[in-house]
């Protein structure tokens, strides 16, 4: 009676909480708390606690039929042709991402991380957009401004922000919903951020960049940080989004919207996705499914069964993240390695290029060079150069709809999973105006369809229906809707 126990990180978001995975003889696993983990002291959010119920292993397939891994690799190698597009949003290790970059390069392409903001904003900002501040720095900040809801989106930030308050910090939240730990919840016109927030170099701004983020909004926040001297931290929804961004920094990339548009106009015929499920990630699931259906070849290299593995022509199943050898870089810029030793994910990409097994050492060395370190030490954050950048003209898109369904976008959202929190939130005025009754679901209608769902009265901005789960009748992160009983 012996167990396989892996030291690893939670794949739920870019905090990359340390955890153990305890694998049983039947291949199922439980999670356990790693109390000495520097990032989270062993603490996990709802997503991490339920990880074993949430993440299921992928199975290799060709044309819907289960096949041996080697057959799937051969089929993928034959199907990946010049002109193929590649996506890796950061749900796997840096080493696998780098291996895919080599494959893409051999086909005259690049690997897209899907973060459109990076391709729209000058390169000198990328380091600041990518790497945030050490989590300890949040605790010692004098003032914190939140452009996220930490409770729903990045729950392991809550304890850091509460610690900062104990140390005397004041917390201001700017967003769709009042954040209960904030001393002040505000709705501010982006043009007035600087004057109303009164930040300085003891302040920390916490915001988010995800594939749907408006680049203009990122520019406004970068301007705010530059003008005030405040540190800024952009959280990302994918565990290794920062690492993949660092690895890809010199390449021109497309947003996921651009990729879908190019599939629709026929310029992309073959798409290779590395642990990236566009059906889950993009808000309009129907539109993504329609686009993917137009491809000649959808090739998915993944450790996890998800919506996209059901529709892919070829699925190359690799070991789960906790079993992989390799490095993840979290939102702090902290490099983390687990105890996994699996290199399937790298070896299959190597095989597609006709390379022998054993590319891991090469790509790992390349990563260490990129990070400027000789070895990974989870207790030491590598030093990153953050070049100065010029202030930018920015005009964030105004969400000019009377009633809008808005996604908060927590770990369950980005992983396309049903959560217990399957309800929407709206303020009392909207509940009253919509004649909603206690215990009777709200009917939410968009141009695309409708849904009946539980609701909760919360301190949400006027006109906003806030959701943590993806609803089928949406067309974007913000969808115009009507609400009725």
């Amino acid at each position: 009676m012996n167990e396989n126990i892996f030291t690893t990180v939670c794949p739920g978001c870019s905090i990359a909480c340390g955890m153990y995975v305890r694998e049983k003889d039947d291949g199922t696993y439980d999670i356990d708390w790693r109390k000495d983990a520097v990032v989270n002291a062993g603490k996990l959010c709802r997503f991490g606690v339920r990880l074993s119920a949430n993440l299921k292993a992928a199975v290799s397939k060709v044309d819907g039929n289960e096949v041996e891994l080697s057959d799937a690799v051969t089929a993928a190698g034959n199907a990946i042709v010049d002109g193929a597009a590649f996506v890796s949003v950061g749900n796997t290790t840096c080493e696998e991402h780098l291996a895919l970059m080599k494959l893409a390069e051999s086909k005259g392409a690049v690997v897209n991380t899907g973060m459109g903001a990076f391709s729209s904003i000058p390169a000198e900002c990328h380091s600041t957009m990518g790497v945030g501040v050490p989590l300890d720095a949040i605790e010692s900040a004098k003032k914190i401004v939140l452009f996220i809801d930490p409770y729903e989106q990045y729950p392991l930030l809550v304890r850091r922000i509460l610690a900062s308050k104990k140390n005397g910090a004041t917390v201001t939240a700017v967003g769709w919903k009042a954040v209960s730990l904030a001393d002040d919840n505000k709705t501010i016109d982006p043009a007035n951020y600087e004057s109303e927030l009164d930040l300085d170099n003891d302040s920390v701004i916490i915001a988010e960049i995800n594939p749907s983020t408006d680049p203009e909004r990122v520019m406004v926040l970068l301007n705010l940080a530059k003008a005030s001297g405040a540190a800024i931290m952009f959280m990302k929804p994918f565990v290794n989004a920062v690492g993949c961004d660092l690895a890809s920094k010199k390449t021109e990339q497309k947003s996921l919207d651009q990729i879908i548009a190019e599939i629709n106009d026929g310029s992309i015929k073959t798409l290779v996705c590395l642990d990236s499920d566009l059906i889950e990630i993009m808000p309009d699931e129907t539109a993504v499914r329609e686009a993917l259906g137009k491809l000649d070849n959808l090739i998915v290299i993944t450790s996890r069964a998800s919506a996209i593995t059901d529709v892919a022509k070829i699925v190359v199943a690799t070991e789960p993240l906790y079993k992989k050898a390799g490095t993840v870089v979290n939102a702090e810029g902290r490099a983390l390695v687990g105890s996994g030793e699996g290199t399937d994910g790298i070896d299959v990409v190597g095989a597609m290029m006709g390379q022998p097994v054993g590319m891991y050492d090469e790509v790992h060395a390349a990563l260490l060079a990129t990070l400027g370190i000789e070895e990974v030490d989870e207790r030491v954050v590598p030093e990153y150069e953050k070049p100065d950048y010029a202030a930018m003209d920015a005009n964030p898109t105004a969400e000019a709809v009377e009633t809008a369904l808005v996604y908060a976008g927590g770990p369950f959202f980005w992983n396309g999973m049903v959560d217990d929190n399957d309800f929407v939130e709206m303020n009392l005025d909207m509940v009253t105006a919509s004649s909603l009754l206690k215990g009777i679901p709200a009917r939410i209608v968009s141009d695309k369809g409708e849904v009946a769902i539980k609701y909760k009265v919360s301190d949400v901005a006027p006109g906003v229906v806030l959701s943590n789960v993806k609803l089928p009748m949406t067309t974007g992160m913000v969808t115009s809707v009507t609400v009725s009983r």
Partner: protein
Amino acid sequence: MDIGDCYVGWATDEDIRTRGASGGLVTAMLAAALEKGLVEAVVVLKKLGEFEAVPIVTSDPEEVKATAGSMHSVPIVLSRYLEYGTKVALPAKPCDARSTIEQSKRGQVDIDTTYIVGLNCGGTMHPAGTRDMLDVMYKLDPEDIKGEEIDKGKLIFETKDGEEHAIKIDELEEEGYGRRESCQYCAVNIPRMADIACGNWGVIGDLAGKGTFVEINTDKGIAILENAIDAGAVEITPADDKGKAIREKVDGAMMKVAAAADEKYLSPIEGSHLDYYMNALSDCINCGACKTVCPVCACGEGAKCTEFSSASDTYKMSLFHLVRFVHLMDSCIGCGQCTDVCPVDIPLTHIYRRFAEPMQEEFEYKPGMDMTTPPFFGVDLIEEGH
């Protein structure tokens, strides 16, 4: 050998004796239990670093031997890793032993096939707090530490250069470091509810630091010790009366310290109780970690605390917590696991104790001390004529 006998024992294997705490008796006894087939598996902490260990269930005696040595900075309760029906042994702090017994009452553990090797415990520390403490109080780099021990009220760290660095635990706790809060007010130091209770208190004279004081509490305790002696893994000598008296004195002193901490930390709530609980619970993110990690919770997925609760119906404090506070009044042993894993640092154990202590005092029932069920269950059974 009889129940109630006390001995001082040690491992015969020099390596185990050197690496293990107090002569390595516990490690040798657990390994021998596997080697001689007394048990199929042992639950132990596999050391991964100076402040890190992970519980493993193993049938490999060598893996058990490799775990020799105490780790005060790994506050984990091992009873969660027991599987019903497996003949198993575990080293058990009082909270490990008590939760094993509570799980047995709930049909989760077969007490007849579980050998509980008790370890005296004066408290444990969270690794993150230990690292901070080393930095702030000891002015030491945590990565320079190669060992720690508690002796005569001091917490002593040994650095890689062989130097020892000691600070009084009272002084550390005055500054907010040292043992976890729940350990500070835990009054159960000697695990007499275990099959066998082991520790260094009462080991005197030439054997001080080289032997383990052992008290036999059950027939299983006799079996596991005799098994180790038969295997040639352990040697024992009867404990003398002076050692026994010293052990009792240390226990008594620790209980007094715990009582004072209990009074300090669990003094009556000032002001509105509703405000107190709403403030304490309002940051809850509904993760359920406190339930998952709880070593006395046996309700599983369909539990009342989850069935009655929905985040959509919650204002600041959820029915999940309120149900759990009441439901665990009879069984909470104050192990501190819920506080350790809470992602928003709610002092959950503290709150559970606020509910549990008055009830447990009223019924003169202390969970996990023996197989007696809570008194109100007993009354129901008698009234039903069973």
